[in-house]
């Protein structure tokens, strides 16, 4: 018997208007971490969803341990020992962590239909301890931040003791410490012979964790290489079919520019305490910090998405009363949320509507009649500029890949043409090619005189893009650095005055999963 766990051959999958997978293949061995990379919309998630029983393939074969497997639903996949962490969070917010982890296979009491909640909680506690997560199994998932929810998803996937573990961009919402912990866990699993599929856009992670890399492009298999025998540039070339020139954007000096946004003594419960900062014309102001530091809260408070307790906001020197996002837009502030599906897009509507949604008032004739020829032209123009992959302007946004959805959100705010733009994790889940396009875009916007706040959990990105960096911790601003003085170490020092979700004394876990 060979050590091949999964073989997928000739897999085809079409969605209405999209040929998502064509003649795709993939192979996973025992005890390897197999990275799957490709541009947004390349079909990575779709291929793995076929393996996990979420989508039915149109044709092709899946061999599991050498035998043809019929994976027609998620349960069938679970029975085979295939477990998947989805790109989108798939949790029940009203249930507790423990209830989420054991959904579908709850321990029962002597009477079969009765639940044994103590066992659920105890087992979960063990699991969380093993991952060094300081979480109470009885906490409702709705009360957790995205990052913590992601960790719960990971804990859940691990709890299956699966032989095949698929992780679709698990680190997109995580910070360094958590990623370290995750990698430790993955390595431990590798030793136990688990085969892990690891989808990511953070190419540097490939070299930290993966054994082999498979590259996909436009729904097709491009190739598989041993990580040890390749390098970043080669992978990028395989992904995009060309070389990407990753020049550091120039950061123009802008010390003399006027202040367009000033925030004074912003307070909101324990989440935001005494936030004071200003933003200048043409400036990119980076917001760094660990997850839960309160950066999103700052953005939402400025944008009027959440009510504030106290504090003042000045736009162009004048005091602004921002009670709702509508007020914010009227004051020329735009906000791109970190969770595009929930807060950024009307997924059931088409591309055209989504890109003009924040700027409809610009396309109105008498009686509130929408000038569709103008919305179409504008949408077309921006879809082209940002090279958003979509079969047509009338494609429903939910059928676009994650990265293209993100570009759409950006297009939306570019059309709204606000002077102040707050980008919350603008490159989360975006491929390298698109990322460099977005960096360039941010730069151009700053050059055009827009004032930009960029919230990011990726330190290299923050360091590369920002004129100035504000570091937050626990709802307070703990430091400010100019681009010249900023380094990863300094930022981390400000950002980690106390431990994160992962215990810092994390002893290497030896217990078996």
């Amino acid at each position, binding site marked *: 018997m060979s050590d091949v766990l999964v073989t997928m051959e000739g897999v085809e999958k079409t969605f209405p208007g999209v040929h998502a997978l064509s003649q795709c293949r993939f192979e996973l061995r025992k005890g390897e971490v197999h990275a799957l990379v490709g541009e947004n919309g390349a079909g990575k998630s779709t291929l793995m969803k076929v393996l996990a029983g979420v989508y039915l393939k149109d044709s092709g074969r899946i061999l599991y341990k050498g035998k043809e497997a019929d994976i027609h639903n998620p349960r069938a996949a679970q029975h085979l020992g295939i477990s998947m962490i989805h790109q989108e969070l798939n949790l029940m917010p009203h249930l507790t962590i423990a209830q989420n982890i054991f959904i579908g296979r709850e321990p029962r009491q002597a009477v079969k239909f009765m639940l044994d909640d103590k066992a659920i909680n105890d087992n979960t506690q063990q699991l969380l301890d093993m991952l060094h997560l300081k979480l109470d199994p009885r906490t409702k998932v709705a009360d957790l931040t995205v990052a913590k929810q992601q960790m719960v998803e990971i804990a859940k996937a691990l709890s299956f003791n699966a032989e095949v573990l698929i992780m679709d961009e698990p680190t997109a919402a995580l910070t360094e410490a958590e990623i370290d912990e995750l990698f430790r866990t993955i390595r431990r699993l590798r030793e136990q012979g688990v085969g892990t599929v690891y989808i990511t856009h953070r190419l540097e992670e490939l070299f930290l964790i993966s054994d082999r890399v498979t590259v996909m492009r436009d729904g097709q298999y491009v190739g598989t290489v041993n990580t040890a025998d390749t390098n970043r540039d080669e992978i990028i070339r395989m992904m995009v079919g060309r070389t990407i020139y990753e020049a550091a954007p120039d950061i123009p000096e802008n010390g003399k520019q006027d202040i367009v946004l000033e925030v004074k003594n912003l307070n909101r419960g324990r989440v935001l305490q005494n936030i004071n900062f200003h933003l200048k014309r043409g400036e990119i102001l980076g917001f760094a910090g660990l997850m839960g530091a309160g950066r999103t809260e700052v953005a939402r408070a400025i944008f009027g998405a959440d009510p504030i307790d106290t504090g003042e906001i000045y736009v162009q020197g004048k005091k602004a009363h921002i009670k709702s996002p*509508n007020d914010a837009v009227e004051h020329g502030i735009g906000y791109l949320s970190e969770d595009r599906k*929930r807060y950024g897009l009307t*997924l*059931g509507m088409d591309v055209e509507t989504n890109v003009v*949604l924040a700027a409809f*008032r610009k396309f109105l004739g008498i009686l509130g009649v929408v000038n569709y020829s103008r919305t179409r032209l504008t949408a077309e123009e921006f879809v082209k500029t940002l090279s958003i*992959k979509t079969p047509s*302007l009338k494609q429903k946004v939910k059928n676009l890949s994650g990265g293209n959805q993100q570009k759409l959100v950006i297009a939306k705010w570019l059309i709204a043409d606000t002077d102040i733009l707050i980008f919350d994790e603008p490159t989360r889940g975006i491929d390298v090619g698109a990322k460099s396009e977005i960096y360039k875009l941010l730069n151009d916007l700053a050059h055009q005189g827009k004032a930009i706040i960029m919230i990011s959990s990726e330190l290299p990105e923050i360091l590369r893009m920002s004129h100035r960096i504000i570091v937050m911790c626990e709802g307070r601003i703990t430091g400010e650095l100019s681009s010249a003085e900023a380094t990863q170490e300094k930022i981390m020092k400000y950002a980690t005055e106390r431990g994160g979700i992962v215990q810092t004394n994390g002893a290497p876990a030896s217990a078996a999963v």
Partner: protein
Amino acid sequence: MDISIGTPKALPRGLLRSDATQRLLAFAALIVLIIVFSLASPNFLQFNNIIGILLATAVNGVLALGVTFVIITGGIDLSIGTVMTFSAVMTGVFITFWQLPIPIGLIGGIATGAFAGFINGTIIAKMKIPPFIATLGMMYVAKGLSLVISNLKPIYFNDTPGFREIVMGSALGSVFPEVEVLQIPNAVFFLFGAALIASFILGRTILGRYTFALGSNEEATRLSGVNVDRWKIAVYTLGGVFAGLGGVMMASRLNSAQPALGQGYELDAIAAVVIGGTSLSGGEGTIMGTIIGAFVMSVLVNGLRILSVPQEWQTVVTGAIVILAVYLDILRRRKS
């Protein structure tokens, strides 16, 4: 894969295209019903009965138009039936009690509906009460107020000559008095006129766009800087306008405002909307679908009556057809 815009101009606009399929299929169901009933009874396809069907559709159709907007936002309006009645009663108050001229009475009636819708919208948007509950409350309030204001008695328009002719007269027919097939009551034109306006609002105006956006993802719409509260109130107010129009049509047709009527109409209207392919979870729907849905309902009821099917069986069949019609629509969508 087709990068960027592909051939947008070659394709008919996506939204329109899917609408077209939808219309075709719901329409097919309607045609099947009509064929079955025509074969089963020679009385079904006579001119008078067709007019009867059109008339029976008029009020429910107009109500359904308003609910279409509400349902596309992902909401529901249980109050339209009794708000319709309330509007009819207020029309009676204006015209019969206060002796105001007919046009003012009609506008007053419609404004009453709009006002009730505005209250619905305000409760929903500002107090964050789920639409089901807010409009359930309004259903009771409007019902009670209709009875209180009318003093539990129908208000008659017998002393207002011409009131009945507003919907029951035939403006077209009076131009061609000798052509029988043109003796179509105005109610029918009210229905199709209202449908055209609704279609225009939904398809061409900002209100229509936001109606869809609210239903698709309200939070994302809010975070796009749209004043969702205001637009939500506008949608429910619009629903109220159609309920008010239904009310004055009802009053004109019966030449009286019947205060006890109305409850239950909301279910027929909602059924029409959903049969017409509008999704209760919001974000999609068409006016054409709603009109066809309304006709499916009234052709069904009329046909069963023409066939003298016992009433209790009519109820059973109606229930089954509602489910079936929606199922067909779902099958169609799954295919596409």
